[in-house]
């Protein structure tokens, strides 16, 4: 189980630029599915990078089960936005997914792959999460295993990325706009998969532009616009909507 706590995070990309994040605090309990919503430029991707340890906050700190993030970085995996990948690279889907297992970090927790021990149902597909085939089968890309990445549709590429992230030993998964290019059925299917992962004890933070009914699929919602505007259950957030200054969200048709 992994409790993620981020306290008073502030971050600027350079000394001259305005802060991308200002005093952001979030707490993620094990086995929860959290939506991170906000307009473009709200700092969602920036926050996910800080939580993954790719960038370091100017102020504030991040801990997992009370330990500093630097010492337990392998417990967090980030699924990047589709646009950050080089999809024309000559590689098959199977090879891409297998890269999720690759760890070159010298962190002490590299081998702390505990998904199996988190299982509540031994017959569940996740029992074979560490196996390439089972992972690809669950996200529906097994038949595409030998296809090159540039022959996949946007939705298929997104599922391949999810499979790659699932191959990592991490217990906290950060998914950066994974539903961005999925059609409604694929999106529902995706949310079912992440729900299963949360149910077995993994913590997931999913950044999203979806401000609609699909928020009900999450346990917790964090509304971000440089700082945390609101956080809580989907119902409590909806009731607070009138009080939250989300003009920028509405301007962007969320």
């Amino acid at each position, binding site marked *: 189980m992994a409790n993620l706590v981020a306290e008073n995070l502030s971050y600027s990309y350079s000394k001259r630029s305005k802060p991308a994040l200002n005093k952001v605090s979030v707490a993620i309990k094990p086995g929860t599915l959290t939506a991170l919503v906000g307009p473009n430029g709200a700092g969602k991707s920036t926050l996910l990078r800080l939580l993954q340890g790719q960038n370091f906050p100017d102020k504030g700190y991040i801990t997992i089960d009370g330990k500093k993030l630097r010492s337990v970085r392998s417990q967090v995996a980030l699924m*990047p936005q589709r646009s*950050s990948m080089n999809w024309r690279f000559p590689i098959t889907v199977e090879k891409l997914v297998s890269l999720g297992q690759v760890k070159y970090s010298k962190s002490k927790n590299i081998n702390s792959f505990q998904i199996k021990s988190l299982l509540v149902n031994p017959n569940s597909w996740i029992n074979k999460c560490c196996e390439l085939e089972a992972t690809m089968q669950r996200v529906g890309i097994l038949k595409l295993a030998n296809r*090159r990445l540039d022959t996949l549709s946007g939705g298929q590429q997104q599922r391949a990325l999810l499979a790659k992230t699932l191959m990592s030993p991490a217990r906290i998964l950060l998914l950066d706009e994974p539903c961005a290019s999925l059609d409604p059925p694929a999106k529902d299917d995706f949310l079912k998969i992440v729900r299963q992962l949360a149910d077995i004890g993994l913590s997931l933070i999913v950044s999203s532009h979806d401000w609609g009914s699909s928020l009900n699929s999450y346990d917790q919602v964090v509304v971000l616009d440089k700082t945390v505007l609101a956080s809580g259950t989907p119902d409590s957030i909806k009731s607070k909507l009138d009080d939250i200054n989300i003009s920028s969200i509405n301007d962007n048709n969320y």
Partner: protein
Amino acid sequence: MTFINNWWLIPLIITIFSGILCPAMGTVLITHRRLLQVNLISHCVLPGLALALALGIHPSIGGVISGLLGSVIAESLTNKKSENYEAVMNTILAGMLGFGVLLIPLLGIRIDLEAVLFGDLLTANLSDLLRTFIAFLTFILLITFGYEKVVYVGLDPEGASASGINVSLLNLALSFTTALVIVSSMSAVGVILVIALLSTPTLLGLYKAQSLRIAMMKSSFFGLCISLLGFILSIVFNLSPGPAISVICVASLVIPKLSEYFKTFFKA
């Protein structure tokens, strides 16, 4: 000393190794979206060559250092999002080439600029052959020990960095190997025309390749065919091998397109 007396043997071996090495290196660079760096490094070797000659060092060492320096300067002046990389690269490229041209008369040295820029394969000697072997060996070592990392960084630089790969160090190793390959190709095709040998076979080799390794092997096969054809034509028709290889590179891209066009035209 039959080996030395056969004047065509060293140029032939260099042709074979350059024909295999350049396209393989080009495949890595194209898939890493770093092919523009070849342009940069190839133009940056001149000041190093001139300085090395003036100081009495082997010109190849100066060329590699100078090429690498140009690449490092360009990367350090580029912003984080690489938005200004092309403009910075072209500035450094022009500046270093100009600096090299200025150095030659200032240092009072003699360099056969035509041979450096466009190659003089048929006069290649054992020193050129050794240079080619060193570049070949360096590339083999890079791929043998760093293949997985090269794949990961080319596919997903952020993910590779997050998984603990030192992306900057790998990029530096790629720049160093690229500089070595370019300098080693000086005698075969020259530092300018090497761009064709790094790019064209790669475009052919990448087609439908299922992995970087297969793409490199296919590119090297096409590169070898092109180089050998250029070598033979330059001997038979008394041509300069570097430009001949470059023209064949262009033809190998244009001819299939033209034949496709004519097939469609006559079918219609």
